[in-house]
């Protein structure tokens, strides 16, 4: 799932060689802004066919939060 996340972040922001870890913070470490985050959320929804309410987005501060959230939505590790 980390690889898919990296791909999506690259597609949305052009940032590569991210070397994501569970503790990577989307805003503090990757310097993503709100537009980046919303596009990433939309891409994750399309990729995994899940619904991510906007009110949940701001809980997903680190990679591990996003991974756990998606798993709880039934997305399986790939």
């Amino acid at each position, binding site marked *: 799932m980390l690889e898919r996340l990296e791909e999506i972040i690259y597609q949305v922001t052009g940032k590569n060689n991210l070397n994501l870890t569970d503790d990577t913070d989307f805003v503090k470490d990757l310097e993503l802004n709100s537009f980046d985050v919303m596009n990433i959320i939309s891409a994750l929804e399309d990729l995994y066919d899940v619904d991510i309410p*906007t009110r949940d987005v*701001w809980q997903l501060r680190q990679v591990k939060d996003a991974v756990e959230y998606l798993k709880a939505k039934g997305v399986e590790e790939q």
Partner: protein
Amino acid sequence: MIAVYACVRKPGITTEETVPALAKNYAELTGTAWEPGTSVCRTQRGKPYFCASPLHFSVSHSGSYWACAFYTADLGMDLQEHRSTNPEPVVRRFFHPEERKHLEESGFTDFFDLWAAKESYVKYTGSGISDSFSGFSVLGGCPARFYPIPFMDGYSLCVCIGPEGAQPDSKVIWFD
């Protein structure tokens, strides 16, 4: 006057350290009171503000630039780089029906201007992006005023302030 201080993004730019230093300059420019040592606090939702000062600020960064807008009343500011992206999924999900109609009819030409305006509004209100982001239209009905400010090519910058008062002047001030 609304002053937007801008610089090329680089390591070491932080709200807690950079913004008070810029505030001193803004205070001198505008004759506003500024107490050295004024620190930055944050609301529960994370909106930064000066703990005890008549000055207000809003920070944004996008692409190659970081910016901070100052004013003597509450404000929100957003800077957004124009990216080559398909705007339709974001428009469908995050924009008000009135905004969607406008964008569809205009070929999405001012998509980033509208996004910056919407973001500036939620930063002004302190609500941040939430489920209600698509519930308001910056094209009319918001109890606020929007000022697009010319910035670099390929960027939209918008400041949002309250509905009352005279229209303020604005300027962009570059710093190293």
